[in-house]
């Protein structure tokens, strides 16, 4: 690594974001803000039924409607698709993956598309879509993930003869002791509700055809590179004919990590019609047409000795796939498969996932993806085990923490670094638990209607996707590397091109911090380009907290190559040996001759002019590095929630939330804190507010922002954050991922707090989200 790796002029500083001014003045380039001349507006006609066959469809009235240019049914477009919609993660050899296409004549979930209408304006397309005449034959639907495998269940995909998609297992048996022979065995069953991601920008695509059969696809996506590959493959296009641009993107949280029907429709129809085609999702449409998260039933067991040493963990998970497999649907449980022991040293490890089809919107990655589902059951059951053992809940956690790193864990992977004890200690410093317990006792003794509860969640996770070899071994179709290019322009300005694709994470700022430190230049000299496949030729995009620990690290290796080349140029120009040059802060000096020096920027000019370069050296100063990480990234930490529960109404409100996270080196504390704030909020919201609910026929009851509660500022407190810092030894920056930690940690902390508030009333379990009704009923049932 270069000598400047230790220099921290920018890395570690709260540099304000360069992205902000554009966004704050209303000049963002979100897809729906772009309307090239001649753009057609596309509307998708969707099934109102969860499972139904189209027995007849007439587009005549729609086609005759004012402003309509074209309308298509599934049959009209069937020859446009050279392959079914892609699923990149066949988790087992015999996994069932029923083919699905952008339009269908058998709807498998409410919202499945059956026709499209294209008109000159959005209003005209919407009006005409109302005129599409469809006769439906409703079919039996299966909705409940917990019942889909029962004998006699309706089938989501009757052709398969089963609702089972796959079974995947990971077992280790380090001690040979049977779980049932342990002193104490605690088994709990949990349902984790279906969540609807709700990025505030709904999805949008704009496909602009060019004169030579090429198409530019502007997409509200997290994955422009993956989208180009898979849209091209699905449509039988050459990748060279498809440019994908992710302009400003209004949040993702995993929901824009997918290849959707509308992406394919827009490109196919722009080619067919020779005009730009734009589709912008409406919010209520987003509720059915964009992937959901969670919907897991988990039976989780912890076994321990009498003194509280945990010997076994076992998870049996039934995970809803929805009606079809989207991009990584079946792999979501696997993203948590190696962390069902959490930060605890548990030698015997067993997980089994059963993927299940239901007639519901497909599930896929939603913030945390597989790891919140694991952490929730672990941390809930840790409290249950502590109660069973008669131990303090915090001390049970502390007693079982992994304390030596690197640590090879029961599931077989190796955690690079961490200090779970330090995080917990710091949490307790901030929390003042003694005062909280005293207040709790007082309120209990007084029979106060507002009871206090404290809940803990000590967690770790694996993110930073990911070592390509491991991804291959677990049957993921692609690798997990990331690419970066650093290019000096003649005057010393620096262009950075990254394969990551930010949608709120601030890479333009933090990547500039990293590069400016590496090259010893002013941060304003560094420009960061991303999100356009014609500029960033190779990359694997932004998801799974991978951008910094993979893409950010790639910047360092590209900088090394730039500095190495500059060293050769400087040595040549100063007529010294390259070995005699020392590099620091952008300047080379000659050992023993302090008056002789030359900057990287001066070397960049020399490389541009190319008048006097070493023999055989190519002109120009730029380098590309492609970095494949040797390990996952392993953040961890300790969170606590303090809640007040109104025992008369069941209303649970957060009073405090304290989070200590360890994400290794912090590049930009403003941005890291922002990621944690947002992540915690989605975890809190999972615990208290959000639940996607279907009726028994598969009709989504929570189908808009009125019936599905995304919390506002009024529902939430401010947060108390602090950090510990265990640098990752696997990369030169020492960084770890941070995008999902809050969401992974928060939900169990909050539910544990709610239960703590009412445990003295006899309440032992409340299903998420802990709505006032659920809390009130739990209290009434405990009384009865």
């Amino acid at each position: 690594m270069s000598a400047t790796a230790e220099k921290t002029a920018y890395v570690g500083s709260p540099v304000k974001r360069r992205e902000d001014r554009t966004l704050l003045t209303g000049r963002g380039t979100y897809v729906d803000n772009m309307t090239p001349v001649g753009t057609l507006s596309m509307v998708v006609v969707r099934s109102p039924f969860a499972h139904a066959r189209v027995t007849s469809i007439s587009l005549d009235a729609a086609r005759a409607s004012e402003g309509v240019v074209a309308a298509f049914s599934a049959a009209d477009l069937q020859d446009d698709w050279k392959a079914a919609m892609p699923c990149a993660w066949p988790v087992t050899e015999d996994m069932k993956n029923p083919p699905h296409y952008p339009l269908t004549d058998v709807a498998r979930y409410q919202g499945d598309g059956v026709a499209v209408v294209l008109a000159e304006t959005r209003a005209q397309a919407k009006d005409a879509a109302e005129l599409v005449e469809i006769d439906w034959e409703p079919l039996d639907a299966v909705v409940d993930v917990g019942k889909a495998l029962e004998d006699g269940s309706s089938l989501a995909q009757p052709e398969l003869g089963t609702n089972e998609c796959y079974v995947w297992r990971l077992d280790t048996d380090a001690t040979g002791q049977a779980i049932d022979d342990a002193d104490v065995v605690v088994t709990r069953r949990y349902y984790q509700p279906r969540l609807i991601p709700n990025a505030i920008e709904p999805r949008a695509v704009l496909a602009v055809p060019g004169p030579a059969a090429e198409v530019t696809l502007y997409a509200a996506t997290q994955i422009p590179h993956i989208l180009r590959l898979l849209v091209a493959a699905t449509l039988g296009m050459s990748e060279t004919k498809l440019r994908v641009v992710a302009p400003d993107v209004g949040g993702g949280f995993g929901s824009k990590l997918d290849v959707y029907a509308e992406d394919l429709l827009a490109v196919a129809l722009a080619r067919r019609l020779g005009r730009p085609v734009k589709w912008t999702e409406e919010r209520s449409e987003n509720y059915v047409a964009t992937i959901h998260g969670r919907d897991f039933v988990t039976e989780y067991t912890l076994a321990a000795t009498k003194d509280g040493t945990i010997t076994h963990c076992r998870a049996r998970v039934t995970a809803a796939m929805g009606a079809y497999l989207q991009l990584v649907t079946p792999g979501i449980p696997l993203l948590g498969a190696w962390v069902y022991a959490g930060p605890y040293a548990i030698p015997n490890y067993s997980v089994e996932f059963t993927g299940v089809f239901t007639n519901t919107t497909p599930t896929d990655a939603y913030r945390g993806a597989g790891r919140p589902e694991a952490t929730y059951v672990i941390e809930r059951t840790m409290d249950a085990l502590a109660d069973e053992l008669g131990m303090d809940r915090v001390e049970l956690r502390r007693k079982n923490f992994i304390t030596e790193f690197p640590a090879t864990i029961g599931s077989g992977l190796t955690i690079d670094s961490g200090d779970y004890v330090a995080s917990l200690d710091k949490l307790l410093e901030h929390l003042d638990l003694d005062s909280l317990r005293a207040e709790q006792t007082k309120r209990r003794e007084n029979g106060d209607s507002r009871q206090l509860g404290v809940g803990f969640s000590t967690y770790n996770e694996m993110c930073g996707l990911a070592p390509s070899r491991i991804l291959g071994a677990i049957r993921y179709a692609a690798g997990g590397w990331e690419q970066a290019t650093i290019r000096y322009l003649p005057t010393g300005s620096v262009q950075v091109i990254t394969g990551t694709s930010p949608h709120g994470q601030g890479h333009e700022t933090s990547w500039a911090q990293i590069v400016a430190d590496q090259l010893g230049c002013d941060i304003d000299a560094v420009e960061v380009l991303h999100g356009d496949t014609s500029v960033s030729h190779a990359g694997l995009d932004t998801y799974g907290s991978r951008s910094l620990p993979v893409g950010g690290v790639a910047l360092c290796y590209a900088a090394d190559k730039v500095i190495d080349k500059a060293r050769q140029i400087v040595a040549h120009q100063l007529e010294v040996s390259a070995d005699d040059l020392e590099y620091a802060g952008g300047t080379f000096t000659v050992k023993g001759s302090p008056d002789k020096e030359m900057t990287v920027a001066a070397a960049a000019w020399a490389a541009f002019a190319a008048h006097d370069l070493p023999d055989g050296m190519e002109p120009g100063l730029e380098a590309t590095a492609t970095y494949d990480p040797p390990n996952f990234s392993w953040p961890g930490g300790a969170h606590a929630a303090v809640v007040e529960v109104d025992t008369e109404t069941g209303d649970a409100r957060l009073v405090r939330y304290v989070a200590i996270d360890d994400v290794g080196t912090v590049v930009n504390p403003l941005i890291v804190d922002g990621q944690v704030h947002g992540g915690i909020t989605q975890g809190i919201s999972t615990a208290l507010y959000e639940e996607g609910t279907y009726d028994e026929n598969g009709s989504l009851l929570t189908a808009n922002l009125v019936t599905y509660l995304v919390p506002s500022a009024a529902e939430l407190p401010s947060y108390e954050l602090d950090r510990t810092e265990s640098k990752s030894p696997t990369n030169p920056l020492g960084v770890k991922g941070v995008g999902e930690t809050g969401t992974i940690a928060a939900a169990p902390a909050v539910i544990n707090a709610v239960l703590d508030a009412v445990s003295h009333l006899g309440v032992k379990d409340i299903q998420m989200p802990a709505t006032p009704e659920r809390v009130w009923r739990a209290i009434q049932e405990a009384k009865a």
Partner: protein
Amino acid sequence: MRHVALTVNGTRHELELEPRELLVYVLRERLGLTGTSVGCDTSSCGACTVLLNGESVKSCTLLGVQADGAQITTIEGLASDGELHPVQQAFHDNHALQCGFCTPGMVMAAVSLIEHGEATDEGAIRMGLEGNLCRCTGYHNIVLAVEQAAGVMGKAS
């Protein structure tokens, strides 16, 4: 079609509108002022908030024809002479935006809240922004930004 006159960010526009056109689409599609976002279809998210005769309104809850004769300020009209409005500056200073999509509406709602003297403390700010949803920031830094801006604007309490 109805004839409507609007003054937006100080510029007067004479438009022929369909009676069913929502104000937000008049701003975005007729006038090209795409800074105002559309985040929902139930008037829940507040991304489309603008100032109408000085009051914050969700521009998806009004028809364009209802705004006939009105003075409207959108996010594009807030900064003057290249200087960010104190609320915009405070959002930047406090990292109160991430993806930025809800931000125009959040900023306009905050401007209105502060100017009405209602951004007096954390609780009031949180209640006052109840109609605006953000999925990225958890609101923590938005509250800090509004507190800062209220101070700068002399409306803190």
